[in-house]
Every structure is written in C-alpha cells, then in structure tokens.
C-alpha cells in the first residue's frame, strides 16, 4: 500500500504505479471476433430501424452489423465511416444506452440491447488498424475553407470538405488536435493514445492543414478568415467554465472538472498527479462522472457527486451513474452548494437541500456539510471569445438547418452552436452536415448525407 494513501490534503501518489495501471485500463475492452459474431447474431435487421433514428449521425446500424455477421467487418467499418468519420471514438464515448442501444427493439423484448457500441468498435478498430486511410479525395475544387477548432465538429467538417476536393486549414487554440476527444474524455474510455491515433488516421485523407495555438479573437479574427477563405466553419467548443456562485468559491483546491480531466489525460505519470482524500464534485453531467470516477481511480478515499436537482434529471445517463457508484462514488441529489469553507484551502462545502417545483429550484432550510480537500466544478461550460457580430441563442451561436449562422459564409457546429446535446456524435453530425451545405453552396453539387 502506498504511504500517501491516507494523507490529508491534495497529494500525489496515493496509489502505487501498479494499482494505477490496473485502474486505468480500457473500461470496455474490445470484442474478440467470436464475441462480435455472437453479438451480431442478435440483431433483427429491423425495418427503418429505431437505432438509426436514434443515432445523431444516422449510421446504418443493421447494415453494418449484418456485414460483421457475414464476416466482412471492413465493409461494416466503411458503412460507419461514411456516416461518421469518428465512428471509432463514438463507439467508445457515445452514451449508447440513451441513443442507439436505448432504442434497440431488444430492449423491449428482453431488456438487453444488441451491443451496438462494442460492435461498432470491433469494425472500426479493425479497419483503422490497417493503417491506410480508406477514403480518397475528389479532384481539387480550388476552394479553401477555414475551420476553427480541431475537435470532433471541426475535424468532421474538415474531413468531409477535404474528401470533396476542398483545401482546409484548421485553427486550434491548443497544442494538440482532437478537442474534447483529446482533452475532455475520461482516460479509461480511450486508452493507448486512441484520440491522437484517430486524428492522424483521419488526416490521412490529405488536404487538411492544422495550425495550433491559434485562438479566435487573439491570433486570428473572423473578419480575417472570411477575407482569406471561401467559407468558415466555427467549431471551437465551449472554452469558459460556469462559476458555482457559492460563497468562498475562490479558496484553494476548488477547480474546474474539465481542467482536472485535461491534466489527467495529458499526464505522463499518473502517480505524480495530486488528488484529494475527500473529493466533492459538483454537477450532474458526464463531466462530473468522469471527474469523480477518475478521482477514485487516483486513490481519493471519499468522492461525492452533488447534484442540485432530482437524479432523473442528471445529464449523466443511468449507465454512467451506475459506473460511478460501482467505482465507489456517492451520488447526492437535490442539494446545491451555498458556501465553500476553509482557511485558504477548502476544508468543507456547505450545501442546501433543494426542492424542484413549477417555479424552479428553491433552497430549503435543511443544510449539510461535506468534508472536502478538493472540489471540482462540473456545472457546465460556456461560450468564450465569440465575435460580436454573430447572433447567439441561449448562450450559443445560433444556427439554422445545416449549421448556417447569422453571417453569410460562416457555419458553426458542435458544442459552441445550438442544436442537439453536447455530445461527440452530435458535433460530428453537425460538422458533417455543415460541410455538405458548404460544398453545395461552393460548387452547386447536391448534398449527400446518409440517413
């Protein structure tokens, strides 16, 4: 046992290196060919299948599963990639239990869906392991498109544009491409550097140039991009983090969950990452679960997720919640933070129980305190550094149809834009659809979107 395991405060090395390796293995190991055959046999090949409807990228799921069942997994992978070039990552991070698998008719039949996510990973991993990129570019159109943000939306858009013969330059604020795939997803969901490998594979199509550490409003401007390029796609995500608005929030060791997740993903030595003994995560989405579970995996003794509304309204799916509780995380609902106590560093967080009525959330007089030497805020991100001339809606860039913003020649998609949940798969769909629309406008060719 590591000597630091029970140390108070925020310290590195609570677990031994061996324990850390064991904790951060692939959370859902890939299917073997035999397992894939057995799983694929369960698909009913439904008419107008509800799983396709439930997929934001409309992957033809029954077709790709039949292709696996008939021992042509590469054809299955191409069915997936035609609709969703991030089929590999989506297979790992999609909340399938609320999307395709949640809609599977086998849920109605037996309560056990076809393992669509795992099958998708089986197919896409196989084709990607061959190394070469499977799509070829159309002849050059001579058109140049600027994409802001190298996350799922921007890269999906760029790939589709490049495939259609346009030249794409991506501007990204960070030193590495991938966006939240690289910086914002729990380590155990995409092990072995999958996010970077996937981007490298995607870029294999050619015609996409990435310029790093280029932030909109700093190194680049929308006017500049519009002047230089034939079209612009904005997919820079949500860089800002919401505040708790609780007294004492500025005490030490009260951090953003996204920063914690990012640092963990980028860490070369998990034993060097400091973590509290008593950790409190505030929020109810997937970021909260990712932060809380990983805090436990790093050796935090007590980890609680505190969510202000009822459990049924948590952004994290039931599957995610179960994953958290299975890892020893306690989930407390209907409680909102009112104060962070401590002397310099956080020592306790004070919460009020809440009631959720027609007039909104109200705090009750019933209060409690949780011991905490580290607090993670996971109460949502917000748009940051967006040009003033763009029309916003509910704090996001307003888009209509396939990602058109209020400005001609400017499209947007992903978390920074309205429409859909803030999911990787939604971002991929929006980037793809915007690319089709841009291509149609730039060349007069018909739109080709599956589904």
């Amino acid at each position, binding site marked *: 046992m590591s000597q630091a395991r029970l140390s108070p405060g925020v310290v590195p090395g609570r677990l031994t290196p061996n324990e850390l390796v064991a904790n951060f293995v692939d959370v859902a190991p890939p299917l073997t060919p035999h397992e894939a*055959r*057995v799983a694929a*046999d369960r698909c*009913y*090949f*439904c*008419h*107008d*299948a*509800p799983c396709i409807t439930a997929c934001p990228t409309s992957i033809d799921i029954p077709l790709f599963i039949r292709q696996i069942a008939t021992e042509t997994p590469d054809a299955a992978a191409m069915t997936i990639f035609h609709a969703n070039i991030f089929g590999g990552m989506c297979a790992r991070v999609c909340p399938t239990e609320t999307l395709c698998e949640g809609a599977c*008719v*086998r849920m*109605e*039949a037996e309560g056990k869906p076809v393992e669509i996510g795992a099958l998708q990973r089986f197919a896409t991993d196989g084709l990607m392991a061959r190394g070469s990129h499977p799509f070829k570019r159309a002849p050059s159109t001579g058109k140049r498109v600027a994409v802001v943000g190298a996350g799922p939306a921007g890269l999906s858009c760029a790939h589709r544009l490049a495939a259609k013969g346009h030249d794409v330059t991506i501007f990204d604020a960070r030193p590495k491409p991938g966006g939240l795939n690289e910086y914002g997803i729990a380590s155990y969901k995409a092990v072995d550097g999958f996010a970077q490998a996937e981007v490298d594979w995607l870029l294999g199509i050619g015609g996409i140039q990435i310029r790093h550490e280029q932030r909109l409003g700093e190194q680049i401007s929308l006017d500049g991009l519009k002047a230089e390029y034939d079209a612009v796609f904005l997919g820079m995500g949500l860089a800002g983090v919401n505040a708790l608005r609780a007294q004492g929030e500025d005490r030490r060791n009260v951090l953003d969950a996204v920063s914690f997740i990012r640092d963990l993903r980028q860490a070369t030595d998990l034993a060097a990452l400091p973590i509290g003994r008593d950790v409190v995560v505030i929020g109810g989405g997937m970021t909260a679960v990712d932060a809380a579970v990983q805090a436990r995996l790093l050796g935090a003794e007590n980890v609680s997720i505190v969510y202000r509304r009822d459990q049924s309204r948590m952004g994290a799916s039931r599957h995610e919640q179960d994953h958290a509780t299975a890892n020893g995380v306690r989930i407390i609902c209907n409680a909102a933070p009112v104060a962070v106590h401590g002397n310099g560093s956080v020592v306790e967080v004070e919460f009020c129980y809440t009631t959720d009525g027609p007039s909104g959330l109200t705090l009750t007089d019933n209060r409690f305190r949780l011991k905490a030497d580290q607090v993670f805020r996971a109460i949502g991100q917000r748009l940051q550094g967006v040009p003033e001339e763009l029309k916003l809606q509910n704090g996001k860039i307003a888009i209509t149809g396939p990602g058109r913003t209020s400005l001609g020649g400017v499209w947007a998609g992903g978390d920074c834009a309205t429409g859909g949940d803030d999911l990787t798969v939604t971002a991929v769909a929006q980037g793809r659809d915007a690319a089709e629309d841009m291509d149609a406008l730039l060349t007069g060719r018909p739109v080709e979107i599956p589904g």
Partner: protein
Amino acid sequence: MADLRSNFIGIKSPNPFWLASAPPTDKEYNVRRAFQAGWGGVVWKTLGSEGPPVVNVNGPRYGVIHGPDRRVLGINNIELITDRPLEVNLREIKSVKRDYPDRALVISLMVPCDEDSWRDILHRIEDTGADGVELNFGCPHGMAERGMGSAVGQVPEYIEMVTRWVKTHSRMPCIVKLTPNISDIRKPAEAARRGGADAVSLINTINSITSVDLDLFAPQPTIDGKGSHGGYCGPAVKPIALNMVAEIARNPATAGLPISGIGGVTTWRDAAEFMALGAGNVQVCTAAMTYGFKVVQEMISGLRDYLDSHEMALSDLIGRATPNVTDWQHLNLNYVTKAVIDQDLCISCGRCFAACEDTSHQAIGMKPGRVFEVIEEECVACNLCIDVCPVENCITMRELEVGEIDKRTGIARGGYANWTSHPNNPMARAAE
C-alpha cells in the same frame, strides 16, 4: 406418468428413441455409453461383407450449415459404412447385447446385390443376439458407386428382390431403410412391402453440397482440393423427412406398414411430430453428434410430459395426425383467417412490415411511433408476418366466423368448399 415402452415390429425397447446407424453407433464403446445415457435402442453402423473393410477418406468427412451463433442446422458426411473388420463388430455387438438385453439392437447391413452375399452376412450375424436387421438402401455416396446403398434404394425392383432374400434367409425382423434421393418415396416403400419387409425407416441422408470454399473453389468438406457430394442430415432435413413419412403413412398401398422415423429429430417435439404422422419410433443421429448422448434425457422427459398433459398413451400418438394430411385440392377454400398483431407483445422491429410490404400483399401499415397494424382489406393470411416475427405468439391468425365478411373480398365466409367444386376449376366445370 406416461409409459414410453415401445414395441416396434416385435422389437422391444424402454423408449422409442433409437440411435440411427451412423458414426455414433460404430463401436462398442460408443454404444455402451449411449445405453448408459438412456437410449432405447441402437441401429449398429452398417456392416459390409467379410473381407478387407472399406476405407474412409483421411481428410474431413463432415460439412455443416450453421444458424445464428453457429448452431448446427445441418451436417453432411462422406463417411462410408463401418471401416472396422466384420469379426470385431460382431464380437462387440454380441457383448453389448448380452449386457443390455432390454435395449433394442438392430444391425444395419449393406452387401453386394447378390443372394449369396446376403445369405452369408445374415448367417454371420445370427448368433449375435441382435433383435433385427436394417437394410441400408440409402447411403448416397461411395457405396452407391459400387452398386450398393442408394443405388439399390433408387430401383424399387432391387429393393423388393433383396428384401425377399433377407426374409427368405433370416427370421429376424427386417427394416428397409429408404433413400430420399428419388422422386416418389411411395414406390420404394411399396417395393419393400412386396418383398416382405416388416417396416421401413426413413429418411436416409440427402445428396448435398453444404458449401463451397471461396478461396479453394471447391466443395466442402474439401479433400486435397476436391469435394464430393455427401449425405445431408440434421434439423434442416426434418421437413422433407416428415413429408415422406406422411406420404407412406397415408398411401393405401403402404398404410399400416410400420415406419421408423428419421431425419433431424433434435428434441422430444420433433419425435412427437414424426410419431403423429405415423412413425412407430424415431432414430436420431445429428442431435447426438452435436450435443452428445445426453440429449435423450430431454427427449424422454419431454415426450412423457407431453403425453401426460394430453392424457395420451404412446400408442395414441402414433399416426394421430395422419388423417389430417391431405391433398391441396381438398383444403377448405372458405376457411378465412386474418393476421392479428398483439400490440402488447410487439417490439416494433418492423420485420412483418418489411416482409409484407416488399414481398407480399402490403397488408401491414406502419403508423407513427412504429405501430404496426394489419390492413384486413389486403391480408390474404399468408402467414409470412408470423414466420418472420421474432416474438412467439405476437402475431396470430384469427379465423373468421362463418357468415362474417372478408374485408378483402367483400364476401361472407361460407361453409366448407374446396377446389374440386370451385367455379375456376376447369375440371369441375367439365364434370358438370
């Protein structure tokens, strides 16, 4: 509890489940294990004439058809009759029968098509204590090329001749095993009866190529780049076997001739179906080759439960469905049904819709929310929706009352009327 004891042409066994003449019954070790597991009888794998035994290929002998999850639906084989010396087989048969006097032990035979050969082999097996013989007129590969097996079974005159020799030179009960690789199964059965057979057993395996290796471009099983047709068996052949059993059972020329039913019997239910169509007992091979000898225990308990729940004796079951097998022209054309979808059981997969819309009568509508409903105005009651539905009893057929309007035709359902008197039947008009 139902008594499963069986008396088939005087051969007694504790239950009607016999292992067919096939690889599982090739030697003492297997047959003892089969009897220990509970099999009522065994037809020992086919013996040939004295002399050097036949040889088998030394590459793969079996090909397979798989259903989902690699479930075995059908196997084909290119194995020949026993490749062990006659002496060894006879010694083992005698030894097993001595230890299991209550079980049926029948010897399958195949020798050249001359009277001396048959007389000789019958004399050789006389003191084994075996209960009967089964004449292998069905083996479709290898032996047929040498004028035996199905080469005999495909010529009714030969069947009659050889059967008569056997009945002349032996007092043992004689079962003639028929090949399905003919156009009318009634002819060989009639020939067997004329020759004096005590029973027929069917079906033997069906000529088949199970699959083609798409890299070697050769049939499977592949022997050094070549393949040969084999004999197909297992659940996939059951419908063919059931029909042939029924044809013999309801043929006036063979009615009453005892039948041992063979062909894809995998569960007690399969066995009950063969027996309902007229089989006095059943023989099993592929199920044992797939799952081992233990499957018989399910067959025994299942058949017993079925008979108990229907308050029937085993003898009540045999042939009970035979009178209900008829020719198409006698089917009631005024029997009208309509598909009904149970919305509580429906899982909204839409397979019924796809099947009906694309390949049948456009009689299922798809409503918002993936609700599938039958359009009675279009439904011809073809049953395809029921066949493709993954949920048992989700779709059923409702029989219209006599007098009720069929919404498809607008005509009230009438009483019994068949094709023989139908106005569209030119023969019916000619008879007027």
